[in-house]
């Protein structure tokens, strides 16, 4: 305290102090400018791109396979990660010599930045927690080399923001991403009603892979928590097929889920029964086709076979009459009138009997009151 007071009182010392402060402020300014992430990362990246910027930079593995080591700088510059350096993700590479860097580079861990309340300002997400329970993470845990991690789906150097894509572009891209591993399913899906609408008619209302299976939460179809589990699938289909908003556009009725729920199959499913038919049992899974398609499982020519999967006695009688029947809808024919008849029969009967019961009670109460007086 004392020394400061002396300095403040002394004019000469005061002058030096002021100069010092000025210098300090300027030096901080210059230093931060020099150390700005853009400048820094560009410098560092230039160093890496000496090798990785060449399109023919490849690595031949021992088993003969070729690994692309080229990093497209122009794609990287457009990605949301354009302003961070190579080292920020590939943090295990610390030493680069004239002969390159160490051979076995670790896989990039996105959760180094992308977690809640991270200090570097990376978009916060808890999706990686959902991913922990997914079938892909379980496979990763088992050591399956083909199981995908974050960058398998999101991309690595060519990563793009989800919001930069329209929903149609996104849906198409997702099918292609999943097809990297699930190619056989992609081929089936592409010819289904959903796939052909997406690819040929550019219809963004149809579901692509993640709309049914979930994104980070994706689970095996026989996991009870899966959105496509036997007892859950009708709800997943119902997200679109019970939506009037989507279906009024196409002139298709949106009561298919409701009518399924009131059929014996739907009722048993709601009581947890797994062996009864769900949407996919009759309509197919990835190969859903419209009824007039000869390859459709519910085409009149195929329906007996489809029912026969569970009902060995199924015959042509099974095709006579609607399956998705709404008794409260006039186009279900006589069933509409039968349902109406019973509705009124029940209402009138119960109404008359209730009046009789109440009159009886009224008389007995009155009688009791007269006796107690």
């Amino acid at each position, binding site marked *: 305290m004392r020394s400061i007071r002396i300095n403040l009182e002394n004019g000469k010392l005061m002058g030096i102090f002021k100069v010092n402060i000025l210098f300090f402020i300027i030096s901080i300014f210059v230093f931060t400018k020099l150390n700005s992430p853009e400048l820094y990362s560009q410098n560092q990246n230039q160093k890496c791109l000496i090798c990785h910027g060449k399109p023919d930079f490849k690595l031949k593995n021992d088993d003969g396979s070729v690994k692309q080591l080229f990093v497209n700088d122009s794609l990287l510059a457009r990605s949301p990660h354009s302003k961070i350096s190579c080292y920020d993700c590939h943090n295990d590479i610390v030493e680069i010599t004239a002969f390159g860097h160490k051979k076995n580079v670790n896989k990039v861990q996105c959760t180094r930045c992308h977690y809640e309340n991270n200090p570097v300002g990376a978009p916060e997400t808890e999706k990686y927690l959902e991913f922990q329970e997914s079938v892909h993470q379980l496979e990763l845990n088992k050591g399956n080399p083909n199981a995908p991690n974050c960058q398998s789906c999101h991309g690595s150097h060519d990563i793009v923001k989800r919001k930069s894509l329209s929903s149609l572009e996104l849906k198409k891209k997702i099918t292609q991403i999943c097809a990297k591993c699930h190619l056989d399913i992609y081929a089936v899906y592409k010819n289904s009603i959903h796939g052909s609408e997406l690819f040929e008619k550019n219809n963004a209302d149809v579901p692509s892979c993640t709309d049914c299976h979930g994104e980070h939460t994706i689970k095996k179809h026989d996991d009870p928590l899966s959105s496509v589990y036997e007892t859950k699938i009708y709800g997943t289909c119902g997200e679109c097929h019970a939506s009037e908003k989507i279906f009024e556009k196409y002139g298709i009725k949106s009561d298919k889920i409701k009518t399924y729920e009131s059929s014996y199959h739907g009722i048993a499913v709601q*009581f947890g029964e797994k062996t009864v038919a769900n949407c996919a049992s009759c309509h197919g899974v990835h190969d859903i086709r419209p009824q007039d398609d000869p390859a459709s499982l519910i085409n009149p020519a195929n329906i007996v076979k489809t029912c026969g999967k569970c009902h060995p006695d199924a015959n042509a009688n099974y*095709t*006579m009459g609607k399956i998705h029947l709404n008794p409260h809808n006039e186009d279900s024919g006589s069933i509409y009138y039968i349902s109406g008849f019973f509705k009124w029969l*029940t209402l009138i009967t*119960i109404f008359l009997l209730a009046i*009789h019961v109440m009159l*009886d009670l009224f008389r007995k109460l009155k009688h009791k009151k007269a006796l107690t007086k």
Partner: protein
Amino acid sequence: MDKQNDINDKFNREVEKRLKSKLAEYESRVREEIQRELQKEAELLASDEQKKEDERIESGKKKEIFYERFGINFRIQHIILFSCTIMLIVTGVPLKFPKNSVSQFAIGLFGGAPGARAIHHFFALGLIIIGIYHLLYTFWSSHGRKDFFELLPNLRDFSDVYNQIRYFLGFRKEKVKYGRFSYIEKFDYWAVYWGLIMMIGTGLVMWLFQGKFEPIIFGEINLAWGPEIITNYVHAIAREMHSDEALLATLVIIGWHFYNVHFNPHKFPMSKVWLTGKITEKEMKDEHALEYEKMMKKKEDNGD
């Protein structure tokens, strides 16, 4: 000698005298004893008679006159009918409300939908058998035949309804007199008739369409020709009717029949006639006055 005689006389007299006084004393004591004994006996006798009298009074009170309304055969039919119906309702009606937690609990009790279905089929078989048995009973048993004709509705039932409602509202002072079956009981009987025909008929259609029937203890009954004669459309109609009629029957049983035989203030907690088959003279006079009068008349005629 005289002196000697005198002394003897004196002695004898003294003996006589003392003897007399002592005997008198004994006599009075014995008399008292006998009197006491007699009194006790009399008291015992009196109390015995009192007891007998009491018993007589009590037994007289208990000895109300009962009239048999339903024979054992009919009562067992009713018990089987309602056991089957309750089980069919418990395993069937929840299917109409799958989202309800009570339904989920009820079906859970039977181990899910397949268990509930097997139990439903078992009691459905019971219902079919008791229905057929009752038909035979109404034809072959003299009681059954008599009751069947008593149960046929007639014009009087309509005037009975009118008068009963007037009585409920206080426009009619005296109770309506009913025969062996009031219109309420006739309604119950024919409602069950209608219900059984509907439920068994539509149930059989669904069973045939399935081609198999699996009541728990009999395993699986296969009728592969079923799907040959029933189309999906007919099955859908049967299913709609089965489901709608089931709800109607359940509501009528709980709201109407349970009121009449359980919750009615005069019957609560229940009318025991389904167990004993008997009703008291008072109930007979109140609820079946015409039948009672007829009975009395017959008795008199026989007596004369």
